[in-house]
């Protein structure tokens, strides 16, 4: 298959086969004996926007369904879901983007399960939390009704058509229509006890979002009562006013992922959400780790000067941040000393969850954790899967994994 390079020059590359593309990852997994390590990827993706013809019929409201189906019809100029600017594939340099449609997935199970199994098997991943891709922009839809309808339809499709095909290796935290608090609650009440639902996710890519608003307290209480996790998943939004002065995608991407989690984590902490819902597992996803020590220091500094603005807090903001969970990817490994300090400040041994973000362009392999020189064996096992196994009640897949889960106190299922 040809890819376009400089000046229209065409370069021939092989068709995409995920197993073949990740052959070196499989070697890493064999060399490190990952078979005996339960590995949970708490942030992996599929391209649900390539299955809208399957998803949209699950919309509830007939008027919005008709609008969406018509927008997707041939010859239509409509658009169903919001998009963003950017060049995740770097002009085709990350070849799995332009080649994706060339990957063959004959017959059953569902195409996304077949592809998921290929990369999980290659990396040595046992379970992955499946998140959408395009739906991460759902928070920018101007209509809260359409936001709800699309989240609802996706939730039905993924829990009824995709997850049942995966032999229990995939689970999900379903995307919430956060512009519609009542709709969020209805989603939790409807889908919260479905097989493979480990929690719910709020995409933090939004222009306005008040995580502390009284309208959401019923939602958080419902999640806490059910033992479900609440994840905040970040992303870039080059079109946002904040990033209008960025003239390169690298700037909007690097800042955007960090910024949206910094923004909403700050509001979550200073409004005492950790005090109000102490047993609600909260996970901050896909912003890397470097922002965490920054925010801890910044908020602790200001809290001591301005405690009258956060009277609910009974300890320092960084203490509440250490009660929450964080996904590893994209982990900044440029300065090993800084990374070690970050691990120490966030109590990585108990609060950090491995994430690949595959198949997105800046994915991380399990070896990024396993090979760190300053991390204990216990912390490696916890970060790669033990902590997630406890959070999402995931059982070991073989005796070697079971022994290690028992050894490090992570066997709960």
């Amino acid at each position, binding site marked *: 298959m040809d890819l376009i390079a400089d000046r229209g020059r065409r*370069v021939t*590359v092989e068709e995409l086969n995920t197993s073949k*593309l990740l052959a070196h990852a499989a070697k890493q997994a064999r060399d490190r004996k990952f078979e005996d390590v339960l590995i949970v990827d708490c942030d992996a993706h599929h391209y649900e926007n390539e299955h809208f013809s399957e998803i949209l019929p699950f919309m509830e409201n007939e008027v919005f369904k008709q609008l969406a189906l018509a927008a997707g019809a041939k010859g239509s100029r409509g658009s169903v879901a919001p998009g963003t600017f950017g060049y995740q594939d770097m002009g085709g*340099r*990350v070849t799995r983007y332009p080649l994706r449609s060339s990957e063959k997935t004959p017959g059953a199970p569902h195409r996304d399960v077949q592809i998921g199994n290929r990369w999980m098997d290659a990396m040595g991943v046992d379970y992955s939390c499946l998140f959408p891709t395009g739906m991460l922009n759902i928070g920018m839809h101007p209509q809260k009704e359409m936001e709800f309808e699309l989240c609802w339809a996706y939730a039905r499709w993924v829990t009824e058509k995709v997850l049942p095909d995966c032999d229990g290796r995939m689970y999900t935290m379903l995307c919430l229509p956060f512009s519609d608090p009542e709709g969020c609650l209805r989603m939790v009440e409807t889908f919260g006890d479905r097989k493979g639902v480990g929690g719910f996710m709020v995409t933090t890519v939004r222009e306005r979002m008040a995580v502390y608003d009284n309208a959401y307290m019923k939602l958080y209480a419902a999640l806490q009562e059910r033992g479900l996790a609440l994840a905040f998943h970040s992303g870039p939004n080059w079109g946002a006013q904040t990033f209008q002065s960025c003239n390169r995608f690298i700037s909007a991407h690097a800042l955007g992922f960090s910024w949206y989690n910094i923004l909403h984590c700050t509001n979550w902490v200073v409004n005492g959400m950790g005090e109000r819902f102490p047993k609600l597992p909260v996970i901050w996803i896909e912003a890397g780790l470097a922002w965490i020590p920054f925010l801890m220091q910044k908020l602790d500094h200001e809290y001591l000067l301005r405690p009258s603005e956060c009277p609910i807090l009974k300890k320092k903001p960084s203490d509440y941040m250490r009660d929450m969970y964080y996904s590893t990817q994209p982990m900044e490994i440029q300065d090993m000393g800084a990374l070690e300090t970050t691990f120490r400040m966030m109590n990585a041994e108990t609060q950090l969850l491995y994430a690949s973000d595959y198949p997105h362009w800046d*994915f991380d392999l399990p070896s990024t954790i396993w090979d760190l020189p300053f991390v204990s064996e216990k912390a490696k096992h916890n970060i790669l899967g033990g902590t997630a196994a406890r959070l999402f009640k995931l059982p070991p897949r073989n005796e070697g994994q079971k022994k290690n889960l028992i050894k490090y106190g992570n066997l709960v299922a």
Partner: protein
Amino acid sequence: MAEQFVCKSSEFKNGERQIIRIGEEEIGVFKHEDEYFAYSNFCLHQGGPACEGLTIARVEEHLRADKTSMGLSFSEKDMNFVCPWHGYEYDMRTGAHVADPKVRLRKYDIVKKGDDIYVVA
């Protein structure tokens, strides 16, 4: 040092690459402007197949004397090859990472015997 046959030069077109496997080692051999370059196929970032992705001219940004930018352009002379996993971009002639020359893929010698191309591993 063993010599491993790559292919006949007459069958190796400019712009193409061959991946040669010798035991656990994998070597990417490129033909570029009638020259041959061979590097380890294990990316120095996370171990991806460094030689199996796109080849693309280096992107440059030139400044005028007054320090204003002339914008982005493709190089007329420098060609890179790109690891398809994450986009690590290496110089075709040196195997050095474009942004950090200290990051350098292992380079292998190429021997030509008549029409036959060999890599020395």
